[in-house]
Each structure stands twice: as structure tokens, then as C-alpha cells.
């Protein structure tokens, strides 16, 4: 009979609520499940088109495809090329799409499509070992020119990044520098930069990027310079020396591998076209969850039929919450504790007004018939069973009648839980005999009021979205219900019920 400390209870409830919220936030960040229902995300559909002329024999075409381009993640890939065998081979920075065919005649066109979605996620470093600068051999007089430029750049820099910027600046063709002019006579500026930086001891390589603009066709890749600063690869624009990637730039190829190899064909070209699409953020998250180990925490893996069942089932806690709130804090009397929740679920399927009309009609007709049943003096179980059958008749009758009258909504009354309605009628009828019509009306309207409140909460698109996509939020509801169970204060209706006590105050 001691008063146990409530502190562990409150800590547990707080943990429950905290766990629910943090799990939801975590899943939002990791899986990108949106908080709001209608959120849209841009997706870039990029199509690489490969053209070549075959040598009338077997063909192996191999295209470098991105694996984890910085700033984007791939959500789908597919190839369209009739008659070709296709597969994606290789990992770790050199991922290639390969088309193969035995007998090829004439000009050929192959397509590779991929969808990219902008993402801020950090990509893990794929290279197993640290890259090292490779040795470069220069002939005179280039060797002197390179040395002088590098000395100049080194003097005005302190880090690999600043060094790279300085080299790019010095190698700019318009700079009136004799050394630059000498070196740049070769024409290929970017491979020169790569060689010079490697010579200076900074691992460097080229990369190819694609500028994403809506509805562009026949685009070519643009070369970029990448250096390794000791922990990660950094990208520079070889013309301006600007570090980093613009938002709309997709790095298609990184590392030293070639972009396109065609064995058994000539005159091969690759060009890109792209389209900006919008996809519901939720669909995106669903697609990504399949590849993510966190995906199993949601319902997306289930068959669609079960998913839609869970969609409804997961609304029930909201209804239970409303009932708990209405009964414990407001103090509304209902007939049957959770009957209003089930009615509210039925309303979700029938829509409110037709549902209300149908429900009141069924219960009213049922009450009339129950009046006759009570005069038959049946045992309780058989009376309820008879009532269930009558309720089914009534709903069937209402459906058919409604349909003939041209109301399609009449059909949806079948969503009402028959057994619950039968019990409701039975209870109301006894209440009527024992306590009078007043009490029936009070409890009936109370039940309907709570059902409508629960329905209104359940039918908000946001609540359906949150309960289904963040099932962990139910922990929060659970915590709140537990907290309400500890509420020992006055109910709102008690303030009215006890109001005559004012006299004694």
C-alpha cells in the first residue's frame, strides 16, 4: 500500500517518446522519407547513346558508368539495345556497362538510361588504397618550363588545393607566360595539368562531368581535374581553377579508365540527353529503401494488398488516442469504449456524410427490429445472432435501395463492422428500457461525436502518411496514452457536473 515512485514510469514514457521521435528523424534522414505527404523531388533521367559502325563481326561495347557520383545517388539503371547481351560489371571506381553480340552488321545504336536524384549523403571512399602520384618524365625544354611553373606555384601556395589552383591559374592560355605558351602548344591542357601535378607529388586524374539542364540532347561530357588531398578526391574546373562541383554537375566518369571502348566497331561516339522529372519523394524513398539495410523497418517490402491493410490498421492507434482523450480528459460518455474507433474506421472508407446517414439509419432500423425481438423472449446469444443477421439484411437492403436510387455510396455501408453494430443496437436498446431515451441520446451522440473526431483526425492525409511511413511514431502515441492514464485531474465534464458544489465553497 505504499506510494510507488512515479519517476521510473515518467522516464520510461519519455524514453518511449524520445525513441519514437528520434527513430522517425533518423529514418527521415537515412531513407529520405518525407515528412509531408505530397512532397516532390527532382530526378534526372540521363540517357547515354552510343553509336558505332560495326566491322561485321562480334562486338563488345563497354561504357564507363557512374557508381556513386558526388552529390547524386542512382535510383535506377537500364539498357535498351535489341539483340545485345547486357550486364554491368566491375566495382571500385571502374564500373562498366557491357553490351555483347556475336554477329553485328551495319551502324549500331545502344542506349543506357539511369535516374539520378540529388542527395547530400557523403559517399564512402571506394578506393582500397591511397592513390600515389606517379612519376612523369619530361624532356627538355618542357622540363625546365614545368619546374619553373611549379616553383612559382609552390611559392604562392601552402596546401595541395591551393597549389592546384595556382598551377591552373598559371597554365591559363591567356596568361602572358612563356613557359605556359611552350607547354600549352601541345593543346591538351587537362592531361598536361594532370602530369604536372603528379610531377609535383600531388595525385591527380581526370574526370568527366555532365552539366544537367532540362531537356538537353546530344550533350558531351566536360573534362574536370581531380586531385587527392590526402583524404579524399577534390574536383577542380580546369579552366577557372574553381574548386568543387556546381549543383547541376554530374560526374559520369572518375578515375583513369576510359569512357567508351568498342571492340569490333569503328567510329564510336557517345552522347547524352537528359530530362528533369519530378517524382513523389515517398516513391523515391520506397525505391531507395530496397537497396538500404534500413528498408526492413518499413512496410514497403510487403505485398501491396497487405500494405493497404496496414495503412488502415495503423490509423487505429490515432482513434484509440482520441477515445482516451475524450473519455479521460473531456469525459464524454460513449456506448462501448472503442466502438467509436471502429465506426470512425468505417467512416474513413465510406466518407463522412454517407457514413453518418447509413450508420444512423442502420442503428435506428435495428432498434425498431430489436423491439420486436425483445418480445420474443430469446436467449441473449441467439438474440444477438439474430440481430447480426438483421443488421446484414439492413445493410444489404440499404445498399440495393441506394443503388437503385442512384447513390453509389450506398454500397460502402458494407464496411461497417456488423457485429459491433449488432452489439451497439443491443446495448442501446437495453439502455433505452432501463434509463430512458435521454441516456440513449446522450451516449449515442457522444459515440458519434467521438467517432467523427477520430474520423477527422484519421482522414487528414498527413496522419495517414505519418502513421504508415513512420510507424515508430506510434511509440509517441503510446507514450501519450500512458501519460494520460496517469492524469488524475478533473475532467472537463466534471467541472460542470460538480458545479452545484459552488454553494458549499
Amino acid at each position, binding site marked *: *500500500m505504499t*506510494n510507488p515512485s512515479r519517476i521510473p514510469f515518467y522516464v520510461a514514457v519519455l524514453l518511449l517518446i524520445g525513441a519514437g521521435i528520434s527513430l522517425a528523424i533518423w529514418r527521415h534522414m537515412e531513407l529520405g522519407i518525407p515528412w509531408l505527404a505530397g512532397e516532390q523531388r527532382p530526378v534526372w533521367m540521363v540517357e547515354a547513346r552510343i553509336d558505332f559502325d560495326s566491322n561485321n563481326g562480334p562486338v563488345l561495347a563497354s561504357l564507363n558508368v557512374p557508381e556513386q557520383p558526388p552529390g547524386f545517388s542512382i535510383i535506377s539503371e537500364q539498357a535498351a539495345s535489341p539483340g545485345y547481351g547486357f550486364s554491368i560489371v566491375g566495382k571500385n571506381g571502374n564500373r562498366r556497362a557491357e553490351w555483347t553480340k556475336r554477329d553485328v552488321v551495319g551502324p549500331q545504336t545502344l542506349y543506357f538510361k539511369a535516374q539520378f536524384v540529388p542527395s547530400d549523403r557523403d559517399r564512402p571512399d571506394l578506393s582500397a588504397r591511397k592513390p600515389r602520384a606517379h612519376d612523369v618524365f619530361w624532356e627538355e625544354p618542357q622540363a625546365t618550363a614545368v619546374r619553373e611553373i611549379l616553383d612559382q606555384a609552390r611559392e604562392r601556395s601552402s596546401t595541395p588545393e591551393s597549389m592546384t589552383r595556382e598551377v591552373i591559374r598559371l597554365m591559363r592560355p591567356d596568361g602572358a607566360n612563356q613557359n605556359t605558351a611552350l607547354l600549352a602548344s601541345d593543346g591538351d591542357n587537362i592531361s598536361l595539368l594532370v602530369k604536372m601535378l603528379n610531377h609535383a607529388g600531388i595525385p591527380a586524374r581526370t574526370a568527366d562531368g555532365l552539366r544537367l539542364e532540362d531537356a538537353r540532347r546530344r550533350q558531351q561530357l566536360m573534362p574536370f581535374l581531380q586531385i587527392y588531398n590526402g583524404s579524399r578526391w577534390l574536383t577542380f574546373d580546369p579552366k577557372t581553377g574553381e574548386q568543387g562541383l556546381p549543383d547541376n554537375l554530374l560526374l559520369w566518369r572518375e578515375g583513369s579508365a576510359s569512357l567508351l571502348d568498342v571492340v569490333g566497331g569503328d567510329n564510336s561516339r557517345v552522347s547524352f540527353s537528359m530530362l528533369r522529372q519530378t517524382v513523389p519523394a515517398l516513391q523515391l524513398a520506397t525505391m531507395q529503401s530496397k537497396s538500404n539495410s534500413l528498408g526492413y523497418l518499413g512496410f514497403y517490402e510487403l505485398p501491396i494488398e497487405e500494405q493497404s491493410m496496414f495503412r488502415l490498421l495503423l490509423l487505429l492507434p490515432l482513434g484509440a488516442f482520441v477515445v482516451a482523450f475524450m473519455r*479521460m480528459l473531456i*469525459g464524454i460518455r460513449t456506448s462501448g469504449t472503442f466502438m467509436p474507433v471502429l465506426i470512425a474506421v468505417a467512416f474513413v472508407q465510406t466518407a463522412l456524410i454517407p457514413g453518418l446517414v447509413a450508420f444512423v439509419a442502420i442503428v435506428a432500423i435495428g432498434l425498431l427490429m430489436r423491439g420486436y425481438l425483445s418480445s420474443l*423472449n430469446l*436467449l*441473449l*446469444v441467439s438474440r444477438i445472432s439474430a440481430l447480426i443477421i438483421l443488421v446484414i439484411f439492413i445493410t444489404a437492403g440499404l445498399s440495393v435501395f441506394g443503388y437503385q436510387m442512384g447513390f453509389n455510396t450506398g454500397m460502402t455501408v458494407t464496411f461497417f463492422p456488423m457485429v459491433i453494430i449488432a452489439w451497439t443496437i443491443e446495448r442501446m436498446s*437495453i439502455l433505452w428500457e*432501463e*434509463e430512458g431515451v435521454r441516456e440513449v441520446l446522450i451516449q449515442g451522440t457522444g459515440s458519434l461525436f467521438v467517432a467523427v473526431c477520430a474520423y477527422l483526425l484519421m482522414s487528414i492525409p498527413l496522419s495517414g502518411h505519418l502513421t504508415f511511413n513512420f510507424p515508430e511514431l506510434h511509440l509517441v502515441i503510446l507514450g501519450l496514452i500512458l501519460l494520460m*492514464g*496517469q*492524469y*488524475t*485531474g*478533473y*475532467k472537463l465534464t*466534471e*467541472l*460542470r*457536473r*460538480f*458545479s*452545484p*458544489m*459552488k*454553494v*458549499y*465553497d
Partner: protein
Amino acid sequence: MGWISPRALNRLGMLNMNRRNVDYIARYNERASYPLVDNKLKTKLVVAEYGVKTPRLLQVVREQHEISHFREMAEDLAGFAIKPAKGSGGKGITVITGRDGDEYIKGSGVRVNAGYLERHLTNILAGLYSLAGTPDVAIVENLVQSEPTLARYSHQGVPDIRIVVFRGYPVMAMLRVATTASDGKANLHQGAIGVGLDLGSGRGLNAVQFNRPTLLHPDTGLALENIQISDWELMLEMAARCYEATGLGYMGVDLVVDANEGPLLLELNARPGLAIQMANGQGLLPRLKTIEKLKRPHFTPQERAEFAMATFAARA
């Protein structure tokens, strides 16, 4: 009616529903003891061992086929009451006060035949009035002859006395008197009058009908404050004794005063209502807290009843 502020209710020490459920019923009432009070038959048997008298049990109808014996048994009885053992709030209780040939006269004056009573028994057995709709048994009890001094306050029916017992101490009491509005039933929310009783003397303190203070009985015109319950100390002691019998820390004890046998226990209630506070014009909380603070509770029902009479008596 208007509203009252929570602060005023706190000042009055009004116990509310949530608090009663969480702080008193859940804390002091063992779940295992509930069947004892939710089943009138068990209540009767267990309190008998503790010397608390109840109306004489005439018959127990457990099975459908036993109903045929009911007619034989009732053949030469003038008055009796049929009750569902697991009924709550007085539901399903039928009182027969007399006979007219083959017909039975109900408390309300309506004549019914034996078939009606048999159907009623069937309904009880099927669980129509039981708490969770579970199958039930019907008990037939001797009719309580209300003591004349009390009976004149009541329109039909027998006035009963509700005493809230907390940890074995009577803490508050009221008399429930039927009116025409309540159709002869002693149910407060149906319009019966609740008369708060002074624990010290058993005298009427204050009366309410439909939660509003009244002075006179609307049907009989008698002043309710003059009510004096006889054998008051004995009744408090009986109520206190029920704590030993059931072990329930917070319960309502319903008693009647029979003209021949004196105070009898009608039923126990593990979830007594809050209206008793309105009838008394006082909140329960201060009294409950007084008992909770007791360092050394009294051991015998008699001591506890005396303590309650001394502590909770109305100050003149």
C-alpha cells in the same frame, strides 16, 4: 448549471473520476478481490463468515432447467427479490411485494405473471445484466421490509444507505431515497434523492436531487434534514467489517434497515460513485488523506467505526 473552477473543486477536496480510479481503486483494490463484490452470491457467503447479515437467500437459479423449480418455490411467498448475481447499478433487479391470485405484484404496482418472472430469470442466466455479458446466476432473496420511520421518506422501494469505506474506515455516508421521478428506484442519476449523513450521529445533513440541493422530499413533503438512522454505530461497524471480509481498500457498502432483522448488507461496490460528495456537500479527499496519514491503523472494525464517528462527525 454553469461551471466550477478546478481550483474551487480542489479547495472543496472533491474526488474526481480519474483520481478515484488511479489513486484509490487501482492502488487499494486487489484485482483478485473483485469477483467477491461483483458477484452478489459470493458477497453474501463471504460476509456471512464475518458476521454481517444479508437478506435471507431463498433460491439460487444456476441453470436454465432449474427455472421450473422457481415456480414451486415462489408458490407461497408473499414478497421476494430476484437479482442477477453479477448485475451492477441495480440493473435486472425485480422486486415482488405481493400476490394477487396467480399474479405477482411488482414494487411499482405492476402485475406480472409467473411466465414474466421466468423469462426474467432466463435473461439473467444468459448474462443480459452481468458486467461483461458473461453467463450469470440468479438469486432469489427474501423481501426487505423497510423500517417504517425510514420508509415514509421514500416513494416505493426501500431507502438504502451507501457508506464509503476506505481501508476499513467509514469515511462518508448517504441515504438514497426513491422518488416518483426515479420510478421507485434508488438511483441518483435517475432522480432519487441523496441525503448526506453525519458520520458522527447518522443524522441527515444535506440533500440533493439531480445534483441540486433540496430541503423537502418532492413526493412526501417531509423535511429531509430530520432523518435519523437508527442503529447507526452498528451499521458503521458492519461496513467496516466488510473490509476484513473482502480486503478491498476502497469500496462502497450498501445497507438497508429491515423492520424485523435490523441493518442488512445489500451489496458491495468496488467502484463507488462520486455523487455521495454532492449529497454531503463535502469532498472526500480530506477524509481519505486523514486515513492515509494514520501511522497506526486500528485493528478491529469497532475501533475503526468509533474513530470515524469521532473524526468525521459534523461540527455543530
